[in-house]
C-alpha cells in the first residue's frame, strides 16, 4: 500500500467511485463507510466490469426455480425437489496459501448452498495449474488438493468430480474453482422474502469474528497478486471445517424447523455484505450493533468487524418470538449465536459501536447500486497469426504408438486418481458414479432420480478463440452428462480471467460470454448463477481465458445410467458423430507437435444437441452398453479410457480416409464412443439415423490389447500404467 495515496484509492476505489458515494450520501463518507463501500463495490462483490455482459446470458426456462442473483441457483428436479448449485473461485487465496485457500473455498461455496436451505450433497473441483515440471506448481497442486480434501472430507460432503488441467500461463496463478450441489424440498427454499416484518432480528451464528481476511475481497480478489504481495499475508484465512460442519447442521435444522425468515452466508465483505443484502432484499434498512458481535480477540475496530472475512459464520433473519428456539438449536450444536441487529423501515443501514453511530448509509446503495463499467475491448494482437498457423496441415512423421502413449500420459489426459483419491467420494451414500466417469452421478434419496454433474472448461480452445472455447466447454459439459443418460438441465459457471482493465482481457471475457450464451440457448440449459474471478495475472501476462461450466443433468431412473467402460468382450464398438481434420488446439498438437495454435474445432450446436438427445434416448431404452464422450485426445483417448474403465481390450479400424493422426487425435466436437450388444447394432443404427447423426462401426471389444488396424497394438496393462502413473511420477520430481 503506498503511503501517500488517498485512503479511497488505497482501498481500491477510484476518484469517480468516491464521487458516486458522495452523491449518494450527500456528504463525504467517513473512514468506516468508505471501507464498507470499498468492500461492496470491489470487483469481487459488485461485478462492476462483468455485469453488462452477464446480462446477456439466457437465464430462464421452465426448470428454473431460482435464477442468478441469489446465493445459488435452483432447478426443479421433480418429486417436489429442487437441486441447488453454484460454483465459485478461490484462486487468489490459494495462490498465497494453497491448503487454506482451497479449504476456505470449499467452506464458502458450501455455505452458499446451505443459505438456500439445501443440504450440500456433492462437491466438484475444477483446477488449473502450471506444469508439474516446476516445483512451485507441484506444491500448489498438492496443497490445493489436500486443502479441498481437508475441508470437504471433514464436513461430510463427497467430492465426486472435477477437472485438472495444466498450462504454463497458470504457473503463478492457479485457478481453483469449487462447485457445490445441494438438494431441498422446492417449497422450503430460503429465498429473498419480500414481506419480512420490521423488527426481525439479525442473528449472527457460528464462529467469532477475528482479523482474518480484512479487506480480502479488495486485497486479494480484486487486484493482481504482486500489487499486494506484502499486504496480502494478513488476509489469509484459516478454515475450521469442524465449525463448518456444525454450521451446516445447525442451519439445516433451523430451516427444517421453519424457524428462519432469511439466511445469508458471510463471505466476501463479511458482515457488511450479509447485512446490507439481507436488508436490501427485504426492501428495508437495518440497525447493526457492533458491540454485540462476538470477537475472537479484543480491540477490533468498527471497519474490521464490518469487513472481516472470518469463516464459518451465517447471518439469520429471525422473528423475535422464535429467538429462544433458534438459540436452542444453535447451542445444541455447540455454536454461539448473537443478535447483532434488526431490520428497520426506511432503507438505511445504521451501524453503532460504543453507543455512537459510526456509519449510516442506504443499504441498497451498498448491495445493489455499485458501479457498472463498459470497459474497452480489443482482440489481442497477433491473434490471426496464431489462428492461421494450424497444425492440421503440419507434416507429421511420428510413430503412432509413441504418439498414443505420449497423449495418454500427458498430464491433461492422464488419470487424476492421485488427486481424487484424496477426496471422500462416498459419504452420504448417494454416489452412483464416482470420479473417473464422464459425469458424477448422485442419487436423490427417496426417489429413483439422480443428478449427473460435470465441470468442464476450455484451455487451449479458449486461448485460441474465446467464443468457441466457451461454447465447447458448454458442449462438453452437456455431452458428459448425456453420455451417462442424463438430460442436461442448467448450468452454473465460474469465469476466470486476467485484468479486466486491459482491453484484450475484456474482449476475451465478452467473447466467452457470447459463446456460452449461444451454446446454452441451443441446448436449453439456462445459466442459474455463477461467479467471476478477474485479475488472474502477474507480470502483465494473464491466465488463459478460463470459463468453467458446471453442468447439472437429470436422470429419471439411475438404474439405467450408462457407464464409460466397455462391459466385456463381444460388444460392438461405434463412433457416433464425424471426425474432421481439426488438430488446432488439440492435445496431440501440443504434446506431439509442440504447438498450441490453429483454429479450434468447429461446433455445430444443433448437431451437438441432437447427440445429447440420442444418448439420453439410448440410455432410457437400455440400448447402450457403454458410452464415453470424445474430447481431449480425440478418438484414441476415448477408446483407451473405455478400455481401461472396463478392463477390456478392443480391435477396431479407423473410419473415413483421413490420415491416421487425424482419425485418432482430431478433437472434432459432437462425438461419442459407444458399445452395444451385437443384437442391438441395428437398433443403434436406426436411433442414430433418427437423430440425423453419422455413425461408424469401428469394431469389437475383447482381448487383452487395444488394437487399431495395423497401426497400433498395446496391452491394456501398458496403457493403464502410462495413464495412471504419469501424475505421480511428475510429482515425485
Amino acid at each position, binding site marked *: 500500500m503506498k503511503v501517500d495515496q488517498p485512503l479511497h484509492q488505497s482501498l481500491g476505489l477510484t476518484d469517480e467511485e468516491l464521487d458516486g458515494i458522495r452523491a449518494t450520501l450527500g456528504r463525504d463518507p467517513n473512514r468506516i463507510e468508505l471501507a464498507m463501500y470499498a468492500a461492496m463495490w470491489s470487483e469481487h462483490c459488485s461485478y462492476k466490469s462483468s455485469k453488462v455482459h452477464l446480462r446477456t446470458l439466457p437465464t430462464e426456462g421452465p426448470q428454473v426455480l431460482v435464477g442468478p442473483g441469489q446465493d445459488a441457483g435452483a432447478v426443479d428436479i421433480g418429486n417436489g425437489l429442487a437441486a441447488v448449485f453454484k460454483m465459485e473461485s478461490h484462486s487468489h487465496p490459494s495462490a*498465497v*496459501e494453497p491448503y*487454506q485457500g482451497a479449504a476456505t473455498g470449499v467452506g464458502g461455496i458450501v455455505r452458499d448452498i446451505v443459505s438456500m436451505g439445501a443440504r450440500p450433497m456433492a462437491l466438484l473441483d475444477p483446477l488449473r495449474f502450471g506444469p508439474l515440471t516446476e516445483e512451485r506448481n507441484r506444491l500448489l497442486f498438492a496443497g490445493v488438493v489436500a486443502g479441498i480434501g481437508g475441508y470437504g472430507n471433514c464436513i461430510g460432503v463427497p467430492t465426486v468430480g472435477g477437472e485438472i488441467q495444466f498450462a504454463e500461463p497458470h504457473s503463478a496463478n492457479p485457478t481453483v474453482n469449487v462447485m457445490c450441489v445441494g438438494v431441498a424440498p422446492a417449497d422450503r427454499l430460503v429465498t429473498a422474502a419480500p414481506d419480512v416484518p420490521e423488527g426481525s432480528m439479525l442473528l449472527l451464528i457460528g*464462529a467469532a469474528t*477475528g*482479523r*482474518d481476511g480484512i479487506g480480502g475481497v479488495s486485497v486479494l480478489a480484486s487486484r493482481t497478486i504482486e500489487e499486494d504481495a506484502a499486504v496480502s*499475508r*494478513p488476509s*489469509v*484465512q*484459516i*478454515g*475450521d*471445517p*469442524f*465449525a463448518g460442519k456444525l454450521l451446516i447442521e445447525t442451519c439445516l435444522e433451523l430451516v427444517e424447523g421453519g424457524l428462519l425468515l432469511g439466511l445469508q452466508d458471510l463471505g466476501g465483505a463479511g458482515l457488511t455484505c450479509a447485512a446490507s443484502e439481507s436488508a436490501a432484499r427485504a426492501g428495508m434498512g437495518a440497525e447493526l450493533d457492533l458491540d454485540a458481535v462476538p470477537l*475472537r*480477540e479484543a480491540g477490533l475496530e468498527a471497519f474490521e468487524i464490518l469487513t472481516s472475512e*472470518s*469463516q464459518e459464520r451465517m447471518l439469520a433473519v429471525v422473528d423475535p418470538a422464535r429467538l429462544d428456539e433458534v438459540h436452542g438449536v444453535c447451542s445444541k450444536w*455447540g455454536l454461539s449465536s448473537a443478535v447483532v441487529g434488526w431490520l428497520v423501515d426506511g432503507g438505511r443501514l445504521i451501524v453503532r459501536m460504543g453507543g455512537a453511530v459510526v456509519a449510516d448509509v442506504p443499504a441498497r446503495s451498498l448491495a445493489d447500486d455499485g458501479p457498472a463499467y463498459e470497459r474497452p475491448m480489443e482482440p489481442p494482437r497477433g491473434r490471426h497469426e496464431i489462428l492461421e498457423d494450424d497444425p492440421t496441415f503440419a507434416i507429421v512423421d511420428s510413430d503412432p504408438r509413441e504418439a498414443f502413449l505420449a497423449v495418454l500420459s500427458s498430464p491433461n489426459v492422464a488419470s487424476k486418481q492421485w488427486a481424487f483419491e484424496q477426496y471422500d467420494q462416498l459419504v452420504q451414500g448417494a454416489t452412483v458414479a464416482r470420479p473417473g466417469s464422464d459425469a458424477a452421478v448422485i442419487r436423490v434419496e427417496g426417489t429413483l432420480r439422480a443428478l449427473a454433474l460435470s465441470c468442464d472448461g476450455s484451455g487451449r480452445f479458449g486461448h485460441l478463440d474465446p467464443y468457441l472455447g466457451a461454447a465447447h466447454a458448454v458442449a462438453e459439459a452437456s455431452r458428459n452428462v448425456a453420455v451417462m443418460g442424463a438430460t442436461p438441465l442448467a448450468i452454473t459457471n465460474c469465469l476466470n480471467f486476467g485484468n479486466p482493465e486491459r482491453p484484450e482481457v475484456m474482449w476475451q471475457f465478452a467473447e466467452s460470454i457470447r459463446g456460452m450464451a449461444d451454446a446454452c440457448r441451443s441446448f436449453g440449459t439456462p445459466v442459474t448463477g455463477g461467479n467471476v474471478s478477474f485479475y488472474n495475472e502477474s507480470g502483465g501476462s494473464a491466465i488463459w481465458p478460463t470459463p468453467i461450466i458446471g453442468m447439472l443433468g437429470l436422470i429419471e431412473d439411475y438404474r439405467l445410467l450408462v457407464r464409460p467402460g466397455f462391459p466385456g468382450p463381444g460388444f460392438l464398438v461405434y463412433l457416433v458423430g464425424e471426425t474432421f481434420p481439426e488438430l488446432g488446439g488439440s492435445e496431440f498438437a501440443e504434446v506431439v507437435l509442440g504447438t498450441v495454435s490453429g483454429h479450434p474445432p468447429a461446433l455445430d450446436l444443433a448437431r451437438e444437441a441432437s447427440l445429447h438427445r440420442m444418448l439420453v434416448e439410448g440410455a432410457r431404452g437400455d440400448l447402450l452398453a457403454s458410452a464415453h464422450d470424445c474430447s481431449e485426445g480425440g478418438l484414441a483417448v476415448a477408446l483407451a479410457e473405455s478400455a481401461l474403465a472396463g478392463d477390456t481390450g478392443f480391435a477396431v479400424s479407423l473410419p473415413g480416409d483421413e490420415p491416421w493422426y487425424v482419425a485418432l487425435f482430431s478433437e472434432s466436437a459432437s462425438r461419442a464412443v459407444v458399445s452395444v450388444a451385437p443384437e442391438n447394432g441395428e437398433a443403434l443404427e436406426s436411433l442414430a439415423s433418427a437423430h440425423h447423426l453419422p455413425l461408424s462401426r469401428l469394431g469389437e471389444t475383447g482381448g487383452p490389447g487395444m488394437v487399431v488396424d495395423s497401426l497400433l497394438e498395446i496391452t491394456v496393462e501398458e496403457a493403464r500404467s502410462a495413464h495412471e502413473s504419469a501424475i505421480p511420477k511428475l510429482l515425485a520430481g
Partner: protein
Amino acid sequence: MKYQFQVIVSLKPGLLDPQGKAIEGSLPAMGWANASNVRVGKHVELVVDAETEAAAVSQVDEMAQRLLSNPVIESYRIVSTAPLPDPRFEDVS
C-alpha cells in the same frame, strides 16, 4: 559434532487456531473450565551434524523456514535441547 534441536512451529498470532478452539470448547465438560488460551502447534526434534554450533544453528534456521514451517501462516522458534529447568516437569510418562 552432533547438535540436537527442537523447532516449535505455531500459527501466527491473530490467526484462528481451530484445534485450540475445539479443545478449549470441550474442556468445561471435562471439568477443566479454568484452562484457556489453548493453541496447538508442531514440535519437531532433530539432530544436525556440523562443525560448529553456529553452523548447526544457521542450518536449522534455514530448515525451519523452508521446510518445517509455512511462513505465510506460521512462525517458529528454535530451542537447543538444554536440560530442563525443573526435574518435576521432565518426561513424566
